[in-house]
């Protein structure tokens, strides 16, 4: 058994690599296999995607020792403004000063760089880049993957972190409930004249939410936000084909001109949106983490945070198991992971799906109902607290690695 490790992580993206690092902190060694090439993934302007990092996820980064390097790159979200097509009746989620921020915004590229650099320094991580998995085996005593170049990697537990199209999940015969929103998220970086003041905007239009997420000013001191604009599938190609000038005019119209003149920062991209969920996130010697187990609408920027809560829970379960001498692939450990994560992912998935549908209904009456609903939330401290805690990721039974 050449170099049999605790974990065989298939998929070395943000979630997979965070898992490898967190496991290493607990003394567990992993193989990480990814098709991509790090140099390409971290090339300047690779994509304009950005992620909200909740307070809980930030605690995980602190525990992994990568928070310090990331700190200057993140833009604290001081409040979240939710409006129905910029009509009156908006909800503001603004924490009290002692409660800290609602999270931090990062360019995905910065997160990837920090994780990859940390992984390169970590002797317990063996990272196989540009590697294609040809066969997967899950047996009574362990798991293995054979790569296209013939390399065979062995471990006690296989973890699928390949994202929503996870081939490992498909091969294991785990069925997911899924539906397609028939929508695309248009992702783009924006440079704008006026500062955003740390406000994250969720502006609901009947076609879908239009979100502006505050980023740090760039090196030249220009104000930046990440745009996540949900449009109908049928309109997406047309919007992406617009000239930059016409595109910015459409975007500006939906923002009501609140940030002044706009410029594009990097390329635009369209991502198909879907929802999928499975109650079963484990099989014999297999665990699913991140979008492999649950893909939710990016409406509230919770997808990555949810994946990091998977990471925290799985690592805690495995570390507890290791303390009592259990094999990382032990069925009892996987059962605990599944029970722990099941309710959380389902709750968040339903909430975001419900929001999407609620705000996806066009017409004047639904709009009035939505504004009424927002008014109720605005005036009900308990509800607002629940929404804010969800944004921070601190409600529910939080894994130790994600606690402050």
């Amino acid at each position: 058994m050449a170099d049999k490790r605790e974990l065989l992580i298939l998929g070395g993206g943000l979630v997979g690599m965070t898992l490898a690092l967190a496991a290493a902190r607990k003394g567990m060694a992993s193989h990480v296999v990814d098709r991509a090439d790090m140099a390409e993934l971290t090339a300047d302007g690779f994509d304009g995607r950005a992620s909200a990092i909740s307070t809980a996820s930030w605690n995980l980064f602190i525990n992994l020792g990568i928070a310090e390097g990331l700190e200057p790159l993140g833009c604290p979200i001081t409040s979240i403004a939710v409006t129905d097509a910029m009509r009156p009746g908006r909800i503001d989620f603004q924490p009290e000063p002692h409660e800290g921020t609602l999270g931090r915004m990062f360019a995905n590229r910065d997160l990837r760089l920090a994780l990859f650099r940390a992984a390169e320094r970590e002797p317990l991580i063996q990272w196989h880049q540009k590697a294609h998995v040809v066969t997967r085996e899950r047996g009574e005593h362990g798991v293995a993957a054979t790569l296209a170049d013939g390399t065979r990697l062995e471990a006690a537990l296989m973890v699928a972190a390949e994202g929503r199209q996870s081939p490992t999940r498909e091969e294991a015969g785990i069925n997911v409930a899924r539906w397609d929103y028939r929508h695309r998220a248009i992702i783009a970086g924006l440079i704008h004249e006026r500062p955003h003041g740390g406000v994250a905007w969720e502006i609901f239009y009947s076609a879908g939410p239009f979100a502006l997420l505050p980023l740090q000013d760039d090196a030249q001191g220009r104000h930046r936000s990440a745009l996540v604009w949900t449009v109908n599938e049928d309109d997406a190609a047309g919007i992406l084909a617009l000239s930059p000038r016409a595109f910015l005019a459409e975007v500006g119209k939906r923002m009501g001109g609140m940030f002044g003149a706009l410029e594009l920062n990097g390329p635009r991209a369209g991502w198909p949106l879907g929802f999928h969920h499975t109650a079963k996130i484990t099989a014999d010697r297999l665990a699913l983490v991140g979008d492999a187990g649950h893909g939710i609408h990016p409406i509230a920027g919770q997808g990555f945070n949810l994946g990091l809560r998977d990471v925290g829970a799985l690592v805690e379960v495995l570390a507890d198991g290791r303390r009592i001498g259990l094999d990382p692939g032990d069925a009892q450990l996987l059962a605990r992971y599944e029970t722990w994560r099941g309710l959380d992912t389902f709750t968040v998935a339903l909430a975001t799906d419900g929001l999407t549908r609620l705000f996806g209904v066009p017409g004047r009456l639904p709009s009035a109902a939505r504004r009424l609903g927002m008014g109720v939330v605005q005036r009900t401290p308990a509800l607002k607290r629940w929404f804010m805690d969800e944004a921070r990721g601190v409600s529910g039974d939080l894994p130790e690695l994600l606690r402050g």
Partner: protein
Amino acid sequence: MGDATVANVTIRDAEAAHFDRLAADWWNPRGSSAMLHRLNPVRLAFLRAAIDLHWGGDIESATPLAGKTALDVGCGAGLLAEPLARLGAAVTGVDAAPGNIAAAQAHAAGSGLAITYRDGELAGLGGTFDLVTCLEVIEHVGDKPTFVRELARHLAPGGLLVLSTPNRTPTSRVLLVGAAEMVGAVPRGTHHWDDFLTPDDLRALLTDAGLRMDEPRGIAFSPARGFHLSDDLSLDFITTIRHA
């Protein structure tokens, strides 16, 4: 439950034969030993805490039993012996049912663990061990005083003995013997309620053998939490024991 059987002149042949039939399915977490699999993390957590306390080790260490010898009495197919080996101990497992020992050896080889397995009599085994475990076993033993004296003889000076067994209460009669067998949670014929010991019965047996029993903890069951450590001793209890 019923971890296994112990080779001893005192054990009933029928019990050994019963477990022999179950051996092949032992490591299947959804098989006939499913209840034991679910119990395993709970009793291992107790064991880990007891180990750290007894030897004053680092609670974060992955191998708190490094350099120590361990004996699992009534080891079955190695459900407890393998974790003890991962925790660093040089483990010997002994069981009365040859089928169990064959299953245990095959599984340990697959897991890449070096464990010494013996079928037959505990009395026939030489040597003493730093840690002796005997979990869900004594209820299957016929001549309990002789068996307990054998446990004492195999416990090294300054060593730690951990023992668990179902309590003889109406709760265990209804849940473990009646309901559990009726719904198939444990195989029929696994438990004989009249053989169960109360904590006081056990303490008396141990005292006669020159051993001192600490305060036992309960292993309780609830549908919401599954098996868990508890102050409720009515179903099953686990305790640490040392030389008096």
